[in-house]
């Protein structure tokens, strides 16, 4: 499972980590009872403040996705919440698209129409 962050991203760093964990879950890269990297390890790899990683893990714990086991690490508990995670992911993608659309002065309907036609082309 690969987590990465980008300082230039509009989302705060901890949100990026939460999103990446969600993405990994949805894609099946990580499953129940598997451990996320330790706070120390992830902070060191990503070159970010360990408190940011803790904040992300706490957020995931709040959502019931992970469980912090004292002395052992942070473990996935609910992979079956796929639905919620998927929806959260889609929402994130859509929000980015809507921002782009708005910047170009496009309406939501135009965007929906464009997605429909693009996906039919895509699946061919």
């Amino acid at each position: 499972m690969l987590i990465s962050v980008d300082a230039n991203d509009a989302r705060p760093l901890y949100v990026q980590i939460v999103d990446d964990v969600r993405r990994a879950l949805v894609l099946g890269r990580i499953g129940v009872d598997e451990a996320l990297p330790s706070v120390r390890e992830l902070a060191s790899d990503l070159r970010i403040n360990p408190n940011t990683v803790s904040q992300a893990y706490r957020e995931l714990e709040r959502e019931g996705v992970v469980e912090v086991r004292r002395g052992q690490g942070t473990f996935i508990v609910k992979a079956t919440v796929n639905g919620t995670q998927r929806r959260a992911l889609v929402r994130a993608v859509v929000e980015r698209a809507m921002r782009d659309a708005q910047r170009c002065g496009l309406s939501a309907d135009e965007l929906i129409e464009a997605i429909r036609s693009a996906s039919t082309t895509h699946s061919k």
Partner: protein
Amino acid sequence: MPAPLPTDLSGADLAIVTGELSKQYQSVAALRDLALQVPNGAVFLLVGPNGAGKSTTIKILLDLVAPTSGTARVLGLDPQRDSALVRANVGYVPEQLDWGYAWMRAGRLLEHHARYFPSWDADYASRLFQLFDIRLDQKMGTLSKGQGRRVHLVMALAHRPPLLVLDEPTDGLDPVMRDETIGVLIDHISDTPTTVLLCTHHVSEFEQFADHIGVIKSGELRAQLPLLALKRGLLRYRAEVPPGWSGANLFGDSALRKITTDRDLDWTVWGDEAEVRSKFAIAGAVVRDAVSLNLNDATIALLSPKEVSVRAANPKRAASDLLEPSEAGK
């Protein structure tokens, strides 16, 4: 001159707090009523141009220099009264590496330093030395600026103080060494609960490590707030305006950077996004986009506010004819 952004962090548990701290050097006011607030456990970036007062502030906090007026508290202690005790709890990397031990070998200097700090972790020190590739038998005077700075960093970290005060810790280091240094700092605060006050010009390098920022200019704070709040509250708005739009002063000082053409605005504004958007809307501007800034751009906006008006009457004319840059006040 009031700061455009919030500067008040009180309410948090503070490791460092100064009250109306001022320092006058003959004709120059190095610090003016500075109210620095560094929360416990924070990684606080102190950013500002040379001569803004960063090093002066640090020297006052460590009782290397006496303030002209005002108060300072470090870990609850008054540096002037509990001078030695404050310094016993601080790991300090100074900006100017001057010391009288150019003749001493690095290993000997470490031993020397260790005697002053009963909580010295000798294993940690030697691991860091190996990581930084410094030979113990090298004389301090023969080290490059970067290597000297790394020795200082090892000395600051090895006694695991509750407060680290780092003045330009990556100055003089090549990119690989800078990255290693940041890695060492991250591992250090993973292992040891520490508050970090870090002065640097390399803002983008520390953007992911820091969680608070203070921007200082001419001895005053222009902003002092958590990085998350800065990211959420300082946005670059791109909007369209009708011809003859007269909302140039819509946000006053809260608009730090304004690039205005006949029909478009590219404004960096501080404020709650929803409120700013609605204010734009009421004034007849249509906001297309609101983007958060990376820390480097945010710092530049805070340190040098700018106002540029571009009147493009005839797009075929050369750009240089059209630009009428004017710098607004600070």
